[in-house]
C-alpha cells in the first residue's frame, strides 16, 4: 500500500466544489458537521441552495462577522451562523418532520465506512468505554431524499472506507446514494460501487486497490 497512499487526489475544497456541482438549483440541503460544511463555499453560479440545520433553522447563512455572533444562533455543529433573507426558525419536532417526512432534497454526511449496498457507519466505533452519541445522523439517512457521503477515500491508517460490509455499528441500511472521496465520485448501485468520475491523474486500478469492495469502472 506504500505507493498508493501517496496518492492524494482532490483537496477537501475540490471535493466540496465537485459535490456542489451535483446539487440542483433551489435544493433544500442539510450539510453534516465538519467537511460537508465546506460545500456551502462552492455554490455554482446561478444556483441557490437553502440550508437546513436540524436545530431549527431553514435558510442558514455563513458565519457572522467578527463581534456579531449571537450565542443562540448556531448550527448543528454548535458553531455561530447567520440567517439569510427568507429564512425561518422552528422547533425540533418540526425540524425533524422536515427530515423524516422527505422534505429535504439532500443530506451530505461524513463517514467511517460505506458498504457496497449503501450501508453507512458514521456515528460510533463501537469500542467499549466510548461515549455513544448519535445526534441526528440516523434521522437524516432515514428521511432525506438523497444521501451523499463526503470523505477521504481511506482512513488515516490507510484502511479503505468503502467496504463490502461495515464492521462499525450502522447509522442506516442501504441509505447512501453517492460517495465523494479525494480520489473519485462513486455511486452506490444495485450492482455495488460504480465509479462515476475519477480525480484527474488517478487511475482506476489505484482506486480499486484502495477500496475494500469491487468497483465498476465509469462507462465511457
Amino acid at each position, binding site marked *: 500500500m506504500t505507493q498508493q497512499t501517496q496518492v492524494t487526489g482532490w483537496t477537501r475544497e475540490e471535493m466540496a466544489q465537485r459535490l456542489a456541482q451535483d446539487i440542483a438549483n433551489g435544493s433544500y440541503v442539510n450539510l453534516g458537521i465538519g467537511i460537508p460544511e465546506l460545500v456551502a463555499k462552492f455554490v455554482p453560479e446561478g444556483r441557490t441552495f437553502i440550508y437546513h440545520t436540524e436545530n431549527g433553522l431553514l435558510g442558514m447563512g455563513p458565519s457572522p462577522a467578527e463581534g456579531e455572533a449571537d450565542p443562540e444562533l448556531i448550527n448543528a455543529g454548535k458553531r455561530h451562523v447567520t440567517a439569510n433573507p427568507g429564512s*425561518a426558525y422552528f422547533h425540533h419536532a418540526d425540524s425533524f418532520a422536515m427530515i423524516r417526512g422527505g422534505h429535504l432534497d439532500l443530506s451530505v454526511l461524513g463517514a467511517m465506512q460505506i458498504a457496497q449496498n449503501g450501508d453507512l457507519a458514521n456515528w460510533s466505533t463501537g469500542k467499549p468505554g466510548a461515549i455513544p452519541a448519535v445526534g441526528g445522523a440516523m434521522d437524516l439517512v432515514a428521511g432525506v431524499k438523497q444521501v451523499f457521503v463526503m470523505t477521504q477515500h481511506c482512513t488515516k491508517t490507510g484502511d479503505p472506507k468503502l467496504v463490502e460490509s461495515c464492521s462499525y455499528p450502522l447509522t442506516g441500511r442501504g441509505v447512501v446514494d453517492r460517495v465523494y472521496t479525494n480520489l473519485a465520485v462513486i455511486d452506490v448501485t444495485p450492482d455495488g460501487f460504480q465509479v462515476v468520475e475519477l480525480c484527474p491523474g488517478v487511475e482506476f486500478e489505484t482506486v480499486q486497490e484502495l477500496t475494500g469492495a469491487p468497483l465498476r469502472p465509469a462507462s465511457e
Partner: protein
Amino acid sequence: MINKRVLNPAEAVADIADGSSIMIGGFGEAGSPIELIHALIDQGASDLTVISNNTGSGEVGLAALLKERRVTKVICSFPKTLNSTVFPELYREGFTELELVPQGTLAERIRAGGAGVPAFYTPTAVGTPLAEGKEFREFNGRGYLLEHGLTADYSLIKGLTADSHGNLLYNKTARNFAPIMAMAADVTIVQAASVLEPGEIDPEIVVTPGIFVDRVVEVADPAYESELIAAGVSYP
C-alpha cells in the same frame, strides 16, 4: 434564485390530473382557498379524493367542486354545515364516498403524513362505531387505536402573506389545517393576499416554512363563501 410565484390560480392548478388526492384547507369558510378551488373547477380534473374538514356551503368553493361531480371520495370530520345541501345529495346517491374521521385524528393523520410517521396510536374513538376495523392496543392499561398517516398529491391552501420562497403567515383562525396540509402533500399550492420578497417576513414569526410550499399565487382580494352565497352566486 428561488421563486415559487406562479401567475394566476389557473396556472397554479394546471397539472392536477384526474384521480388525484387533494387536501383543501379551511374550517368552514375560514381559510378556504376559494379562488384555487374555482380554478380547479375550470381546469376539469375529476375522480378526485378530497381531504378537508368540511364539505362546503352553498354552491361555491368546495361545494361547487362537489356539485360538478368531480369528487368521488371525501375524507372529512364534519360533512354538514349550514347551507350544505350538495354533499348530502351526492352521498345518498352513492356518487361520493365518505370516510368519516374525528377532527383531531384527521389533523394528526395529516401531520403524521407530513412528518414521515406512517402510523400512531390515539385514544380518540375507542369503543365507538368509528373504531370498527381498526387495530386496538393497550398502553399502560388504556386502550388506543392505530391510525395511519395521510398524504396527498396536492394541497390547496390559503395564506395571508407569503414570500417568494413560500414562507407563510395566516389570518387568525384561517390557519387551521393549512400548515399541516402544506407538510403532507407532494405539491402544495398557496393563494395569499400578498406575496413579498425574501427577508420581508421576520424568520421568527413564519408559520409555514417555505420548504413545505411549491407554488404561490397572489390573490389580493379573496372572496368569502358567505359573501358569495349572500350574493346568490352559484359557481361556475
